[in-house]
């Protein structure tokens, strides 16, 4: 029975190796924050992190996820207080909200490497994530706000360390 490391916990699952990770997460582990949108890697609703990289869980087999660290929206932060989640609330981004777990996970992968992205970098990184409510401008604003908050936090953090 394959073991998955998901959101910092090891969990055993029962499914064929070729089962898309998406359905294992949603049905077996009953973590439904990760969404099914297209089943073809065209919309980004199912985005999760595999060893910190944003991947489409509908295009990732269970076998490919074994031995890697999986992070879903439920595990992005302990209390739902990742800077992006806070920024998403501050900018009142979601409408129907269905794509937003994927949007946040996709954005989190960008900000984990670059907390000072240009608008062009944001667009290039986010263009694979569809939002049918078309909340794109608020998504952009929220990413910029979170990036700024992360820079401030890290500056404050290093000052603290310095003193």
């Amino acid at each position: 029975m394959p073991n998955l490391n998901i959101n910092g916990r090891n969990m055993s699952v029962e499914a064929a190796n070729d089962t898309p990770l998406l359905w294992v997460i949603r049905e077996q582990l009953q973590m439904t924050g990760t969404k099914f949108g297209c089943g073809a890697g065209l919309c980004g609703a199912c985005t999760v992190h595999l060893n910190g990289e944003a991947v489409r869980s509908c295009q990732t087999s269970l076998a490919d996820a074994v031995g890697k660290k999986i992070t879903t929206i439920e595990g992005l932060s302990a209390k739902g207080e990742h800077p992006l989640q806070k920024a998403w609330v501050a900018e009142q981004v979601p409408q129907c909200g269905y794509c937003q777990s994927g949007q946040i996970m996709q954005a989190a992968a960008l900000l984990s490497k670059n907390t000072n992205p240009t608008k062009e970098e944001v667009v290039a990184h986010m263009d694979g994530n569809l939002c049918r409510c078309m909340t794109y401008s608020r998504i952009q604003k929220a990413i910029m706000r979170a990036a700024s908050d992360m820079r401030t936090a890290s500056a404050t953090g290093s000052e603290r360390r310095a003193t």
Partner: protein
Amino acid sequence: MNKHVKNLTPETTDLSRRSFMVGTAATGLVLGYAGSGIDQVLAAPAPANFEPSVWYAIAPDGLVTVTCGKADMGQHVASTMAQIVAEELGANWKDMRVQLASNDPKFNDPVLGAQITGGSWSTMMNFDAMSRAGAAGRIALTEAAAASMGVPAGELVVRDSKISHPKSKKSMSFAEVVKSGKATKTFTADDLKAIKLKSPDQYTMIGVSVPQLDIPLKVNGTAKYGIDVMLPGMVYGALVTPPVRYGATVKSVDDAAAKKVPGFIKAVTLDDKTTTTTGWVVAVANTYANAKKAAAALKIDYDGGPNAKLSSESLLTEAKRLQGLSDSGQFFVKDGDPNAAFGTAAKVLEAEYTTNINIHAPMEPMNATAEFKGDILHIYSGNQFATRSGAIAAGAAGIDPKFVVMHQMWLGGGFGRRLDADMMVPAVQAAKAVGKPVKVIYTRENDMTMDFSRPLTYQKVKAGVDGDGKLVALSHDVVSAWPTQRWGIPDFLSPSVDKKGPLDAFTVNGSDFFYTVPNHYVRAIKNEMAHNATPSGQLRSVAPGWTFWAVESMVDEIAHATGKDPALLRVELLDGKGKNDGGAQRLRNTLLAAMGLAGYGTKKLPKGEGMGVACVSSQERATASWTACVAHVAVAPSGEVTVKKLTVATDVGTQVNPDGIRAQVEGAALWGMSLALFEKATLKDGGIEQTNFDSYTPLRMSQLPEVAVNVIANGEKATGVGEPAVTVVAPAIGNAVFNAVGARVRGLPITAEAVKAAMKA
């Protein structure tokens, strides 16, 4: 005007009873509820709660939970209802909560008499009822507090969930009053009607951008959509849909290979007496992944049926044939005599406008979970029309609709798609066949090819201008499938002006514009072939999404032919004479606001760039939000159109949540742009050719233009914002393309090829 708007009296609650094609619905639901183990949402509230109205309850801890009878598909309507209640109740926003209503008829829309969400009607039609419900609660709490404090009720002040007596400095929180058990006053309908509501200058909540109550759930993955429902013992259904959109039948199903898939339970061929679906098979298995494998392994032989050879071209050819017949269709508008006026006009313009099939494609694919429990059929699915969908589910199960309980969920997008109930049928029949709860999830391919799409439309417009350049006659034929007629609910149809029987006004709304044109005909012509081959639905903004494409393009063509500025011609036509008094002036003012905001006509644009305007009274004459757009585009020599900026102004009368309105208007405007430039579905051999987001391509972030939104709140009654801005954008873009490069494109979507061809012409 449609009957559903005119009848504002409680009698319309009859609607659900007399009209359904699958049987009498809804009003007997209470029977179904009695002693049948209904889940907690439907159970009577704990006695300690104070429930001054069906719309909300106040718990002893002071939390106010509003029950929203409207489908929340991202327009934050639950939060809006709570905000209206909170205004009159005097509650603190942090104490407000929302829950979604079941299909119990007590949660029916007070104006529509059914549970249906669409038309951008919700705020407009529920504002009064929610205000009165809130005020009733405040009055009851105040009287109870007065008794407890021993002071006159008239001296009490209610604010932030607290009732205070300034003179004695006594105060009680809502929680304390509810705990006292003294708030027991009840209100009759007449009592409610007699309550004096706040005047707008007294508002402290309406008009404030309070945070939407559903948003926190949507950033941490905890919001539950239909697809997220998990029931004990539940199994999964994957659909196999035929290659033909409608009319195919299953001749045989060979499940030999499917039986080798682990977890496979059964293949169920639907026997759909509601005629919602044709030729569908559900593969049921222990997991969705296995159900999909089994579905792929089924070998199904079909009879393609009568529509198997049809294409978009055949539907368009048929539309043109019907339009050419003098006795086609029914009249929606019949003022004066355009045909006589054309004879004496100095100039006559004639043009054909088309729109292709469009697919809703909400991000959450269609799904439903069905469970038979005792006598009750439980349905879990995000749905915009619980009243009718419950009846369809009952029809699929072969039971009386009063035994169906619809559990509403958050909708992962609606846009009109979830007005339909097709997803109930496979879930119900699979659950019945296997004796377990079944969740059916459409693949994106099922979802796109079986969409109840925006129909292909063909419109012919003829305009006559007199020697002074004045528009004296307009005849407008609209040929399309009739989405609302498909519901089989007479009250949603409208009488024709020429008394030739009811017509589907949801195919012509908008064509009864607010311009003054003395001779004006609008004919609604049903394209029976399209109606049968591509069962159509209501796609965000419905008819005004195509009627204004034609009208607002033609007005521009008239301006060009008469040498007038297209915006100023509109101002001239919006003279507010006769039946257009009031609305025309509001639309004119809105147009002027958009022009001002966009800097229309104030600067010379670079070569290849242009600005176009449009203004609309969407959705219906009786429910209009006055909306205008200035589109600024750049057109490349290849014909490729880049939208640089959309400036949208909208007069909504009263705004409940300004930030929420801006979000809706921006989303709607981008929908309009997406439909104008990027979205096109086609029918071939009876089937929809586009199957996923690689071939059906809504706007992505990289295509986002600058969008400026100006919301006008002038104190008139609140109107809707979910749809109107969709309808104004395509003609504004088309007109901007003409302004930029002189290319007139009359078909949606506007493609680079069409622009280039028109540039050469």
